[in-house]
């Protein structure tokens, strides 16, 4: 139980990584990944919360869109219960891409593992997958790992929303104020009248926010700012 307490006190993904790794080692696991699962065809990389995989396998798996072929990842959409990788169903004869992912994983020494599907609100799906032997795990240990996985996933989501890890670049209060007016359809000159800034400064704030968020245009900036809760309407 003290692991749970330590986990909840972590203020960075790296801290979470250290606690998870130290704990799963006691259960015989060496590597893990914690991620959201994207819709078909969507790049998984922005969804990854924490990777404890070999960098080489990670590059290959994420770069080649393996998440959409992997029977383990697919099985997360069909069950709420944790499962062994070996019990993720696929047709080895007919589903060659799935067989390829499983075979390549084996070549990277990842032929067995324990997978905890994470069901989020609104049909979103996440996963915590541990790499290692599972045949000697008993029911009690499986439940403990299940709970640990959910605490870790939740903590990472929290750190992500709060931007505690500093990966998400925030916008300044002024930029947020300007974007709020943009979001309700005001033009630059209208915003200038409301805020007392010059139209040029208003535009400058928008462009700065765009740079900070890595967005392509004003609409995209507003959408991202809302999505990341940088502005509230």
């Amino acid at each position, binding site marked *: *139980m003290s692991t*749970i*307490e330590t986990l*909840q006190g972590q203020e960075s993904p790296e801290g979470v990584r250290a606690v998870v790794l130290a704990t799963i080692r006691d259960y015989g696991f060496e590597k893990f990944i914690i991620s959201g699962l994207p819709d078909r065809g969507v790049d998984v990389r922005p969804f990854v919360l924490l990777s404890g995989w070999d960098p080489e396998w990670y590059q290959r798996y994420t770069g080649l869109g393996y998440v959409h072929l992997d029977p383990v990842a697919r099985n997360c959409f069909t069950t*709420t*219960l944790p499962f062994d990788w070996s019990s993720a169903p696929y047709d080895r004869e007919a589903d060659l891409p799935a067989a390829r992912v499983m075979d390549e994983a084996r070549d990277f020494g990842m032929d067995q593992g324990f997978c905890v599907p*994470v*069901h*989020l*609100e*609104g*049909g*979103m799906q996440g996963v915590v997958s541990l790499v290692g032997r599972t045949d000697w795990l008993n*029911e*009690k240990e499986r*439940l*403990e790992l*299940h*709970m640990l996985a*959910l*605490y870790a*996933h*939740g*903590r990472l*989501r*929290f750190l992500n*929303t*709060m931007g505690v890890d500093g990966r998400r670049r925030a916008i300044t209060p002024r930029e947020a104020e300007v974007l709020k007016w943009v979001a309700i359809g005001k033009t630059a000159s209208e915003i200038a009248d409301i805020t007392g800034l010059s139209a040029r400064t208003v535009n400058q704030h928008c462009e700065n926010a765009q740079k900070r968020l890595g967005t392509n245009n004003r609409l995209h900036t507003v959408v991202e700012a809302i999505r990341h*809760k940088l502005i*509230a309407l």
Partner: protein
Amino acid sequence: MQVHIVRAPVSEGMRPLMEENYRLRHKIFVELQGWDALRRSDGRDVDAFDNEDATHILVTDGGELVGGSRVTPLNKPNLLQTVFNGLLHGSLPADPSLGADWTRFYVRPDRREGRRRSPESAALFCAMMEYALAEGFSFVTFVSSLSMVEHGSSVGWRITPLGAPATVDGKATVAAWIEVSEQALYNVRRATGMSGALIPASALRRRQLGAISA
């Protein structure tokens, strides 16, 4: 969306909403989730803890009930220490009078669809913490499927298991307590994008007057 705090005595105006609450609970917990012990022929989920000590936190949207949950005292007979006693291995973090049991959390199923954090559930989370703080509780217990641990952690709540997780009716289930604090309220509001208070001050004031006269 509007949050209602409903307590005994239930006012005339609130009765239809409470009736809807009991029917929706039956539909969700019995008919959809298969909690058969709660099944009643009248299609209303009402148990021994829906008594004068219970507080119902209900969320409506355009006059329709879209979510709810119930808070009951821990220093009187409660669900945690009766039905779910088998899940308790440790003791409560403080005297039972300082805590409450959070039960029957639900969001109307059609409001759970789509790819978003359901605002109904965000409102219930925020309102529960707001209510618990206002009532002076220091902890809130719950029994739930393990996924609650993920949802709670993701809004920055400190959640401590009261026992090892166990499989109940095929579902991984745990009893745990949530720390009630200003920080927990701040975190859940920030994580859900909720900007301020949800519970009308009048709902809390009424309680204070009641406490004095009692």
